[in-house]
Every structure is written in structure tokens, then in C-alpha cells.
């Protein structure tokens, strides 16, 4: 067996692509061929080393809702992290190092001090930024809905007319909205701090007949992935319009309030 053939068979053997008979023959050959045995051992050790070094994180780091909520923050966090390390973290390596003269060393020592000072400033900003980013803990719509129910379905603020609704929505999501009238539908009032999409998500409590319905609305840019709902008694509906995104949580099979949301006239 040539070296090239042996190399190929080693891979097939370790990939478990040899038939049982071929595997047996290969193992028998390994018993008498120290070189083959060593090559297999090296490959096994190498595979183990790669698995250890590149085992993917088990926690779902990707799709972090906070970062997805704010792509600019994500990019900033990443850039800042690189600025702190001074380089992209890798495997090292590089070219052979020439001997440094004293003057070059001094200049570099000064550079190190400057870099350290910059790093401290950046680290401070980064820490401050991270404290802002991580302060937000997203809440699933159904969990927020159930919290509203258990809190008595009471609003924080009540709008008396369309003008007040337009003012509130302009202030909260940047767009003046109104809710069209419909039979059986009653707007109970508004709330905040649900943390469904962001810290600025606005809550609208409404009833349709005896059903209690909650709308969560925010700027479209604040939209994020929402976990799949597991409560069979409530449904979540989504609508995106007027630069905003709306989620209706309701015991009904169809969205009731979402179709009624419209841009305020004027």
C-alpha cells in the first residue's frame, strides 16, 4: 500500500466509511505496521484537538434578541471589543521576530501606554454601553399578556378622544395613529414598560365582547424574533405598518384590533 493509499484508507477508516470486512483488515494491518498505527493515532489526536478547540457554544448565542433588536449596538459592541483587544483575537502565529533596537522599544513602550490609556477610556464607554444594552430583558408577548390579566387589566393612561391617541402614539412610536371604531370593541387604555419589543413598547388594552385583548406596539426598527408561543388559549398576531410594528395577543382566532389601526388623519 502506497502512502497516498494508506492516507486515504486512514480517512475512510476514521470516517467509518469502510465495510466491516475492510475495517477488520485495516485493523489487522495496523497491528503489524507501526507507521500506520502512528498515523491513525496522530489523526485521532488531531481530531480530538480540533473538537476541543472548535466545539460550538451550546447556548444559543446567535439570535440574541437584544442584539437583534439593535443591530447598530451589535456592530458597536463588536467593534469596541476589537478596539479593546487592539486586534482580532486569533491563533497568533506570524513571521519571525527581528531583534528590536532600544529606540524602537521605547517608541513602542510609549505606544503601549497610549494604547492602554485609549483602552481604559474605551473600556469605560464599553462598560457603560453594555450596561445600557443588557439592562433590557425582553418579555414574551403571551407572558406580558398574562401579566396584564393578573394585574387586573388596568391601564396606566386613558385617552378620551382620537386627538389624545394621536398625540400618545406620536410621542411613543413617532407616528400619529387612530383606532377605528367597531362594534363590541372597547379601548380600555394604554400602558408602558411591557418590554415585549423594547423598553419603549407601548401597550394598548382593549376588549372585544368579553375577550380581553392586548396590543403591543413599537417602532419597526425595534422588532425582534419572538419565541414560539406555547399557550393554546391565546394567539399572537403581527402587523407592520406606518413605520411601526404591532402584536395583538388575544384569545380569538383572528386579529380584532390590528385591522382597526390606521394613520390619524391630518
Amino acid at each position: 500500500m502506497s502512502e497516498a493509499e494508506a492516507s486515504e484508507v486512514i480517512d475512510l477508516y476514521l470516517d467509518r466509511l469502510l465495510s466491516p470486512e475492510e475495517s477488520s483488515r485495516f485493523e489487522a494491518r495496523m497491528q503489524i505496521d507501526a507507521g500506520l498505527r502512528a498515523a491513525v493515532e496522530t489523526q485521532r489526536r488531531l481530531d480530538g484537538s480540533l473538537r476541543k478547540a472548535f466545539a460550538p457554544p451550546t447556548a444559543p448565542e446567535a439570535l440574541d434578541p437584544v442584539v437583534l433588536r439593535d443591530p447598530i449596538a451589535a456592530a458597536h459592541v463588536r467593534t469596541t471589543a476589537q478596539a479593546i483587544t487592539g486586534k482580532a483575537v486569533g491563533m497568533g502565529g506570524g513571521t519571525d521576530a527581528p531583534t528590536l533596537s532600544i529606540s524602537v522599544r521605547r517608541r513602542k513602550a510609549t505606544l503601549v501606554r497610549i494604547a492602554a490609556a485609549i483602552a481604559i477610556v474605551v473600556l469605560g464607554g464599553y462598560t457603560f454601553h453594555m450596561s445600557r444594552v443588557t439592562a433590557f430583558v425582553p418579555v414574551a408577548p403571551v407572558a406580558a399578556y398574562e401579566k396584564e390579566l393578573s394585574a387586573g387589566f388596568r391601564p396606566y393612561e386613558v385617552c378620551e378622544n382620537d386627538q389624545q391617541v394621536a398625540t400618545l402614539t406620536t410621542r411613543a412610536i413617532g407616528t400619529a395613529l387612530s383606532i377605528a371604531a367597531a362594534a363590541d370593541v372597547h379601548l380600555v387604555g394604554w400602558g408602558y414598560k411591557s418590554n415585549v419589543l423594547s423598553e419603549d413598547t407601548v401597550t394598548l388594552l382593549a376588549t372585544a365582547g368579553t375577550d380581553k385583548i392586548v396590543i403591543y406596539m413599537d417602532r419597526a426598527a425595534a422588532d425582534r424574533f419572538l419565541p414560539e408561543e406555547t399557550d393554546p388559549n391565546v394567539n399572537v398576531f403581527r402587523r407592520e405598518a406606518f413605520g411601526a410594528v404591532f402584536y395583538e395577543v388575544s384569545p380569538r382566532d383572528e386579529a380584532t384590533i390590528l385591522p382597526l389601526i390606521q394613520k390619524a388623519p391630518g
Partner: protein
Amino acid sequence: MNDSQAQTAQQRSLLSREEFGRLFSACRQALWVIAAAILSDREHASDIVQEAAITAYAKRDEFTPGTSFEHWVGQIVRFTALNELRKRRTRREKTSDFAGDVREESRPEESGGVGRFGQLMESTEAFDDATKRALRQLEEIPRACLLLRTVLDMPYSEISRTLGIPEATAMTNVHRSRQRMRAALSAAGAGSSGGGHA
């Protein structure tokens, strides 16, 4: 717009946000490995996947249902990682005198007068280090093939689908990468003694 364009546009609009999230989560590990393979490090792989998720999500209407989501999003991860690599190379070129020298100066095996690998290769740490150095010598795609196969035990058909390359190419990439790494480790004295088949 003709019928086929209209049909394509209609198909593309079918990928819902929930479906996107589900599909992305299903191949997250493979995407992470691709990012780690291209960057040759694990520290920033999650950042790359995150960034690619944002990009893919923004462009999700460009995905055609029925085609391979893994390949589509894998391409985005690849390009994102390659962009990052290019930025690093630019940075390294700008600071090569300084950063490179400091790294080399701090190598314990060299300062201790022991050969670059020598006896230290017997230790797991030195072997791991040598493995990473050998891995860095590979091209990005073969490196991704090797890691997908080794780390995730991914079948060649799936590697082919994820990276958008023929299955035979995936197999060849893995085989040659292993060969090159074994050769590099043997040359460095890291492999088991007496290896004559690497």
C-alpha cells in the same frame, strides 16, 4: 413583470419571521463552525454569526423557499467572516512591526531555549497549539470542510449543501486537509513517533 418573475416574487415573500428563526436556529452550529473556520478562531465566531443573522434577516425576502436555507445563510456567514478577515489583514499590515514582534517575543518555548516544538509537543497544550497553527495553513473552504466534518461529524452530503460545493470536492477537501495537517504535525515532531504514512 412576467409570470415566472411574479411566481418567484410570491415564493420569496413566503418566508415568515418565525420560519426564518426556526431555520436559522436549526443550522446555527454549522454556521458557527463555518465562521470559526474562516476566522481560524472561536472568539469572534459568535459575533460573525450574529452579524450574519442580522444581514440575513434584513434580506430574508431574497431567500427562495424550497432552496437550501443552510447554503443561503452559509454564504452570508462566509462573506461576513471573509470581510472580517480582510479587515484584520489590513489592521495587521498597518501594525505588523509592533504586534507581530511582541507576539513572537513572548513565546515560551523560544525564550526557554527549547526547540520550537521539541519536547513540549508531548504536552497536550503544545499539541493543540501546533494543531491550530497547522489549521491556519489551510485555505478557508477546506478548513471549513474539515471542521464541519470533524467537529460536527457532518455527512459529506450536508457539507456539500451547506457550503454549496460538490460532495466529491467536500471529501477531497477534508482528505487533503487531514493529510496536510498530519504532515505539518509530523514535520514539527508533534505526531506519534514512527509515523510513516502521513
